């Protein structure tokens, strides 16, 4: 066991922290309330090479692993950018993983360098109104017509769709009833998004409003066969490859959001004087904050273990799921306690903790609910019977 800090990781942390320091809470508050994508921030992250950190070096990226990517995203969140900042860059940092792993050489060299420098924006379209966690129930259909597919269907919760040029789209190329296994017959396409055959509508939601999540209708969208990722029918397997790293990154984002909330709460508890002393002197205020710190620290260790295993090519399903569960829980608890510590002011927009709170809440739902993590652990770690 060696917990010596890695100098590269320290340098990455320091540099991202410095960069994010130029985008303060007022910036994020404004982006959130105006539903404005944080372009200045995105540009600065791309120019610094942070957006491309996990894309292989031969395609213009930084060639680093999930550990480094998770450190970047944790620091973005912890700066106070929280999920508005993370979601703005998350897809560019990790979304192209299926193309890195399974795309043709032609596809990789055509698209990855443009994603790495922050020029090409790619959304992710998997979830449908009637297919969330039960991904195999998707009905968006792609029919092969000569040298292209024609896509028809409806996706929901496609984040950043309004601002993306392309979408990695999971479609059924073989209807479910004709498949030997439910996980067969699905294909991943790298489709154009800003086309007349595509209708995109933002979904009004509770928070993280700088990055819109959208309902997207595809009505006869043509996609060239050359824009298919890997083989037809293998799309679901390609997605599975990305689930563990995705969970690790999301865990880091939840951790950072919790850290931002806790920092603000501690400062307020020191500064706010009631009955002649700072409220943080009261154990009723101090202990829950100390507990929030303890939970975040534990989640951080779980994240570090999971990312280390992934980057070293070891199985990490248990660790990635536990990291996501622990960090989402710890982040939420910290954000909720930050609101509580602020009393009435916690409910006012100008103190920012309500924003962290709204965004921390999301992490207990997306990209997988806490309950389904428990299902995974019960079944795959404890060996209990499958519940669904």
């Amino acid at each position, binding site marked *: 066991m060696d917990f010596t800090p890695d100098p*590269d990781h320290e*340098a*990455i942390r*320091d*540099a991202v922290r410095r*960069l994010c320091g130029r985008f303060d809470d007022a910036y994020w508050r404004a982006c959130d309330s105006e539903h404005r994508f944080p372009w200045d921030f995105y540009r600065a992250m791309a120019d*610094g*090479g*942070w957006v491309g*950190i996990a894309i292989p070096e031969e395609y213009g990226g930084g060639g680093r692993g999930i550990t480094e990517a998770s450190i970047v995203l944790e620091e973005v969140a912890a700066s106070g950018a929280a999920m508005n900042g993370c979601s703005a860059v998350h897809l560019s940092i990790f979304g192209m993983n299926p193309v890195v792993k399974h795309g043709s050489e032609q596809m990789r060299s055509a698209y990855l360098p443009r994603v790495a420098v922050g020029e090409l924006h790619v959304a992710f379209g998997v979830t449908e109104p009637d297919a969330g966690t039960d991904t195999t129930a998707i009905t968006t259909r792609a029919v092969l017509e000569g040298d292209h597919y024609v896509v028809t269907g409806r996706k929901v919760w496609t984040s950043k769709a309004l601002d993306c040029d392309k979408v990695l789209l999971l479609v059924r190329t073989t209807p479910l009833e004709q498949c030997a296994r439910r996980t067969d017959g699905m294909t991943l396409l790298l489709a154009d998004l800003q086309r007349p055959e595509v209708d995109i509508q933002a979904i009004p939601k509770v928070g993280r409003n700088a990055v819109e999540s959208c309902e997207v209708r595809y009505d006869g969208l043509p996609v060239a066969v050359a824009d298919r990722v890997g083989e037809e029918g293998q799309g679901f397997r390609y997605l599975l490859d990305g689930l563990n790293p995705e969970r690790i990154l999301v865990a880091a984002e939840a951790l950072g959001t919790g850290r931002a909330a806790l920092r603000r709460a501690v400062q307020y508890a020191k500064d706010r004087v009631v009955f002649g002393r700072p409220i943080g002197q009261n154990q009723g205020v101090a202990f829950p904050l100390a507990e929030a710190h303890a939970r975040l620290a534990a989640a951080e260790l779980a994240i570090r273990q999971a990312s280390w295993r992934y980057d070293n090519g070891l199985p990490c399903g248990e660790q990635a799921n536990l990291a996501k569960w622990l960090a989402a829980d710890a982040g939420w608890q910290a954000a909720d306690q930050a609101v509580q510590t602020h009393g009435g002011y916690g409910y006012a927009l100008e103190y920012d903790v309500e924003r962290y709170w709204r965004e921390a809440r999301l992490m207990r739902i997306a990209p997988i609910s806490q309950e389904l993590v428990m299902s995974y652990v019960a079944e795959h770690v404890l060996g209990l019977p499958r519940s669904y």
Partner: protein
Amino acid sequence: MNVVVCVKQIPDPASPGKLDPSTKTLVREGKLVVDDSDMYGIEMALQLVGTAGGGEVTLVSMAPNNETAGLRTGLAMGAAKAILVSDDSLKGADALTTAKVLAAAIKRVNPDLVIAATESTDGYTGTLPVQMAELLGFPSITFAKSVQVDGTTVKVDRQTEAGYDEVECPLPAVVTVTAGVVEPRYPSFKGIMAAKGKPVEQLTVADLGIDGGVAVTQEVTDVVAAEARKAGEIVTDEGDAHERIVQFLEQLKVI
């Protein structure tokens, strides 16, 4: 054109500073970071070398325990190399001693221009750059809010309380820059990785061959807490607050 930037590595300002009770000086153990006020000088130097179309930026620092973390930030921004003087005998060094050490290190590079911040964020004496200029035999210009190099001359807009003076002097020279001089770039990921391979020459006092040597003679005899700011006067509005505030401001002769 070759430019040296003096870089101070200081305890992280984000964590509370501590004084050593026996020496009454700042504790400098543990991780050090680049002084934010030096980021402007590094950026200015990189831009000047870029404009000149040739040459390089060298960072020069004096720090305990061979600490290079802060220098790596400057190298990641684009400086070519660094010189670090680290020596137990320099513990508690005052500004003049530090100036002697840095001047001796700078002489090895033979630069066209030396840039420093106007003062450090942890010590604030603001005396080191001009002492160093004197020891190097260079002219110096302080408080630059813009710097241009024209052949063998450096032209500076020197910030004053009333505005700014346009001053110039022949190279080589020492120039201190304010935080307004340029906007420092962010160290990029590729810059950070490239910085790992850049040379940091580590020297001791003996390597510098300073005439007469250096001796740390400064002794801090006492440290007292800064006087707390006096509580302001709270005007409770009973319908006449505006009049009382106006009266108060009139007393101060601000309106």
